[in-house]
């Protein structure tokens, strides 16, 4: 699998650019992935990325977008737990793009 050099560290990614080893994730990796996805990270983006990392730590999966939306609504409020808000932050799919930036695998059942 391809290796990329991120801030002086060799990091392994899969053919779609997702991080292979979750433990290699750090903020530099997130920023690199964000540039790849053409996403400019704001505090709101970080909030979703951090939420995803916590979700993964608890359940060991990357959630499907519907599940992510619902879970964010529960934790951060309905103004954030909706498709419009999340797609504005991550236009090519919050589950797909935000998971990549968070260093998670592509969500199961990501359609």
């Amino acid at each position, binding site marked *: 699998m391809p290796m990329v050099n991120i801030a002086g560290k060799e990091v392994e990614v899969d053919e779609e650019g997702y991080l292979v080893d979750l433990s290699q994730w750090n903020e530099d990796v997130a920023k690199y992935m964000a540039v790849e996805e053409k996403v400019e990270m704001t505090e709101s983006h970080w909030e979703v990325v951090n939420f995803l990392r916590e979700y993964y730590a*608890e*359940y*060991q*999966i990357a*959630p*499907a977008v*519907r*599940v992510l939306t*619902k*879970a964010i609504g529960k934790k951060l409020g309905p103004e954030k737990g909706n498709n419009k808000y999340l797609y504005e932050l991550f236009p090519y799919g919050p589950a797909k793009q935000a998971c990549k930036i968070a260093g998670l695998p592509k969500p*199961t*059942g990501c*359609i």
Partner: protein
Amino acid sequence: MSDMDEMDEGSGIVKKFMFLNRKAPHGTVYALEGLEVVLITAAFDQDVSMVFTDDGVYQLMKGIDTKGIEVKDFSKTYRALEGYDIEKLYVDQASMDARGLTEDDLIVDVTVLPVDEMANLMAEQDVVISF
């Protein structure tokens, strides 16, 4: 017109899917693959239930530690099922008894069923898939 009863606001036909889990969590790929299929099925808004029987009950054990066998511990993922609106989890009473297990040993809330009730439940399904 009876077909209309199966329609859910125009989103398509909802069938009753049962996923039958019979194998220990590790050693074969069945448990993990079965779980992934269930999570994918959830995206299609179907009526999903999961059954754990035989060594399949071990999939739901609390305190699984996979460090020694160097594979991913996906037992926590069963706790995510609720968020996927999969709340019908059934466990076979005899399989639990044979292994000295009770509901307190399991990582999620389940309904423990005797074999005759389990048979009735299976008979109600449109699709039963075994892993």
